[in-house]
Structure formats: C-alpha cells, structure tokens
C-alpha cells in the first residue's frame, strides 16, 4: 500500500454531491446559458446511456436512436401544449413518454432481430428517418404534429404550483428556470445511473454481453436471444423517451429538425468515445462532447478576432475538424474508448503482455 491519507468513501461522494449541487449557481455567475448547456449535457448522458444498452452491452449497432428521443419529446409536446388544448401534469406524461418510447423500441427492434452488423445499422438508420419524416408530415389531413413548423408554447414543468419557467427565490438565493430544471435532471440522472449500474452487473446484462460476443453460443447457453435483444431495444429506448420529454419541457418548442440523423451519430460518438459498455465511460464521453463544442463557441470567435482581427474559421467547422481528429487519434491510441469497460481493458492489456 502506498502511504497516503485515506479519506473515507463517503467523504469523496459528499464532495462530489456538494459540487454538483453548487454547480448551477457557479455557472450562473458565468452566464445562465451555461446552466442550459449543463442541462443539455445531462440530457445527452440519458441518451448515451440508453444507447449504450443497445450498442455497448448488447452489441446491436443502432443508428436511429434519436427516434425514441423524438417520441418522448412529441408525447410531452402533444399532451402539454395549446396544440390540442391538453395540459397534462408532468408525472403523467414523462412516464407515458418513456413507455411509448419503450414500445416504439420493441416495435422497431422486432423486424431487425435477424439482422446483424452493417445490415442492422442500415435498417435502424432507416427507422430513425421514418420517425422524423412522420413527424414532418403528420399535419394533414389531420393535424397531429403540426409538421415542420413544430409545436410551440409547450408547458414547462410545474411541480406543486412551482413554475419552472420563472425565477423563484429561496432563502435569498435566486433559482432561475434552468437552475430548477438542473436539479430535476440531477435527480433523474441519479436514478438513471443506478438503473444502468444494476443492469451492467445483472443476469440480463450478462445475457446482453453474451449475445454481443457470440449469438449462437448464447442460444446454446439457454438465452432467449429474441426476447433479450428486444429488451435491450426497449430499455434503451425508454431512456431516450425520458430525455425527449425533458427536452420538450425545457425548450418549450419541438420540431422534426431536432431529431435528425446527425443527432443519432453524436450520441453514438459519445458512447464510442467514452468507452462502450462502461457506464462511467459513456458519461464521460457525453460530458466531453457536450461541453467541448460550447467551449469552442465561446473561445474560438474572440480568439480569432483578437489574433487576426476577423473570423477565419467558423466554430462549427472547427468543431467537425476537431471531432474528426479526435476520432482518428482515438482509433490509434485508445480503440476501446477513453474509459473502457473493464473486460475490454483487460483484453487490451493482456494482448500487450503477450506481445512483450
């Protein structure tokens, strides 16, 4: 043992909890926009953890994951906005969105059960687009989704008379709308992480990994591969549904434009970058890919203006360049992700040992 001071485990956890609780107030000092950015980062953690179940654990490459985000968002938008004149409470629509996304996951998953690898990716990509195109066109003859114009004036969250779009003051501390959402998201995040960690080490989690490794052998071991795969799609999708519902509430506006293929690919990139199959790795990947572009947005423009007196490269362009470079470097130096699943890591290090 190294001679260092050992803090009890709860002490570290308490520090992290305190930091997370204070974070929005610190970010408010920089600008309220940063609280919103943090909120979106948490939404992307939900999404990438959901996709991680499908891609990381069960090994099913899903390129249409954003469809379930869309389902969750539209469920909230339709049931809590003037569009249909419905204003249902959050505790009804958030679980309903998760449930419908879950069903959509199973329904879209069912026809893909016999497919693997590239074929699965192509079909799921198609499904993702189908959902988006539906949202775009379900405006006539009956106006359900309001088409490309999207749905506006969506109700925000409203808990026990507390309106989440306005600022309230408790004990002299102002709590802005985004700050209040942050706390709700933090609570949901805790729940989502616990569920994922339990899944990772459960019987179901082992069955997913077995299917990822060798489907035939998994069947021979007595795993009902059809049901277990459907369960992966359904569980993954339900996290997307929760994220979608919160997205609609926070934005107050949804349109099909928010659910394009690019979003699916971003979420997949978070999973791969962080480390497929490892909950903490995926969280790290989601945080990184959520915050870095925003940091660029706020630094690249002033830096260029200061250096050259004008903008030479748009932050958007630079972002793609950096992502591309990061991907290449990752494949070269950390092919299993920044924070890989322990078994991946084990395999990599053993290969090194064997080579040595």
């Amino acid at each position, binding site marked *: 043992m190294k001679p260092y001071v050992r803090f009890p485990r709860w002490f570290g956890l308490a520090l992290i909890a305190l930091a997370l609780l204070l974070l929005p107030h610190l970010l408010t000092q920089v600008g309220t926009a940063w609280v919103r950015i943090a909120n979106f980062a948490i939404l992307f953690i939900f999404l990438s953890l959901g996709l991680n179940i499908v891609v990381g654990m069960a090994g099913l490459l899903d390129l249409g994951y954003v469809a379930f985000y869309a389902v969750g968002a539209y469920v909230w938008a339709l049931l809590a906005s003037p569009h249909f004149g419905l204003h249902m409470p959050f505790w009804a629509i958030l679980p309903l969105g998760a449930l419908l996304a879950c069903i959509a996951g199973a329904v879209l998953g069912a026809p893909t059960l016999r497919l693997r690898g590239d074929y699965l990716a192509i079909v799921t990509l198609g499904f993702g687009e189908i959902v988006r195109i539906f949202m775009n066109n379900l405006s006539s003859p009956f106006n359900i989704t309001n088409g490309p114009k999207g749905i506006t004036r969506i109700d925000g969250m409203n808990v026990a008379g507390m309106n989440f779009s306005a600022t309230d003051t408790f004990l002299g501390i102002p709590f802005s709308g985004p700050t209040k959402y942050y706390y709700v998201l933090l609570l949901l995040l805790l729940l989502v992480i616990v569920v994922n960690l339990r899944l990772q080490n459960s019987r179901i989690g082992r069955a997913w990994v077995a299917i990822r490794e*060798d489907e035939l052998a998994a069947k021979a071991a007595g795993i009902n591969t059809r049901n277990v795969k459907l369960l992966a799609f359904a569980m993954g999708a339900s996290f997307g549904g929760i994220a979608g519902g919160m997205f609609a509430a926070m934005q107050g506006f949804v349109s099909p434009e928010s659910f394009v293929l690019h979003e699916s690919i971003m979420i997949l990139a978070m999973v791969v970058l962080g480390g497929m199959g490892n909950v903490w790795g995926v969280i790290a990947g989601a945080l990184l890919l959520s915050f870095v572009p925003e940091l660029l947005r706020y630094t690249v423009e002033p830096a260029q203006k200061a250096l050259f007196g004008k903008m030479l490269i748009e932050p958007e362009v630079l972002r793609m360049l950096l992502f591309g470079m990061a991907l290449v470097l990752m494949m070269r130096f950390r092919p299993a992700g920044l924070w890989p699943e322990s*078994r991946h890591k084990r395999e990599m290090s053993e290969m090194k040992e064997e080579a040595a």
Partner: protein
Amino acid sequence: MNSHQPYALLEALNLDVHYGGIAAVKGISFAVEEGELVCLIGANGAGKTSTLKALARMIPASGEIHYRKERLDQLPSHALISRGLALVPEGRGVFARLTVAENLAMGAYHRNDTAEIAADLNRIYALLPRLKERAEQVAGTLSGGEQQMLAIGRALMGRPTLLLLDEPSMGLAPLMVEKVFEVIRTVAAQGVTILLVEQNARLALQTCTRGYVMESGKITLADTAANLLADPRVRAAYLGE
C-alpha cells in the same frame, strides 16, 4: 441401420435441411442411445454440421426429432440446455471478451442452484486444469486448443445428458487434438452421451462406439465403429488407404 429401439435418447426421423434451394441434409434418420458415444463422419459439405445445428434447433429443418419423450423440433433452441442437451458449436464459439470463469458461468446461465454450480465448476477445473490456471484470462487470448476445452467445459456446466460436439479437432495441432479427444473420452466415461461430428474419421471411429457416415446429405453407412474402421469403403474414402 441400427435396429429400431423403442426408447432411444435421441432419434431423428426424415431430417431435412435446406439453404435456399440447396438441400444440405436429405431426409436422414438416426438414433443415439443413452450412454453411447456416436460419431457422424463424412467429407466437407456432406451435411454433418447442418445435421447437428438442426438437432440443436439453430437452423430451420423439417422432420421429427425425438428426445426422451419430447419433440425437439417443436422447441426453441434456448429451451434445450435445461432439458440436458448441450451444443459445442463449430469454431468453438467462446465469448471472446469474457474471462474463462465468466464463460463457464454462462454455461450455467439457466441454472440457479448456486452451490451445485460451484461444485460443477470445481469438477470442470479438475478435468481441465488449464482452465483453472487461466480462469481470469479473457477467452479470446487462449490458444485454439484451450478455447475448445473452454467450449466443452462451458457446455458441461449445463450438466448435459447429451453433448453435441461439432468438429472439436478443427484447426488444432495434432497434439492438441489428442488432448481434446482424451477429454471427450473422459466425459463419456462419466456417463454423458455424446454425438460427435468430425472430419478426422480415424480418430472419431477410434474414440466412438458407433458411427454414421454421411455423404452429400445422406447417411450411406451405419455400423459399429470397429466395423466401419474395417470397412473397405470407409478405408478408401475417409482413412486414405
């Protein structure tokens, strides 16, 4: 063909496998009695692996498969292991990124008798000591022979009555093949019934009590292993004499 016994452990009747329009197995019938060590030999593409996969319900097939008093052809593949029928797939099919211990644990996936599982694990480690040495190693880093041993060990973790072995010698060095067959003999001696599909006809016939010879989807010969070894047709076609 072997005389029709009323209570064969496994009995296939008019088994037929098609891939698209191509017939791989053409209405074959055969039986395996409890406690037997039976092999199915034949050239590449004769339909041996298709037959075994059809028995394990991994591919669609027509015909009847009787196992004990049940019709296997009406059961899904994942329901077989709990009925005592385990498949060791061709090309080993270990879970490459799981450890040896995790692989073996997957073999007992359908069981929940924790104490018995632990006892079985020790029995398998005693039978295959290499696996114990490498318990914490990732299966993908094992040698081919060790992976084959692991695949057999994993199947044994399901406490099978009948073990279906698909080409256990495939791609292994001669010395390793000997070792794998030694394990097969030991397992059989412990009372597990074995149906072995093998290209290495000589070794298979020397190991087994009875054999079937398959040729382009049909069973052409069925006899005791000793008789087959002596049969001039088998000697000419499969033993290279």
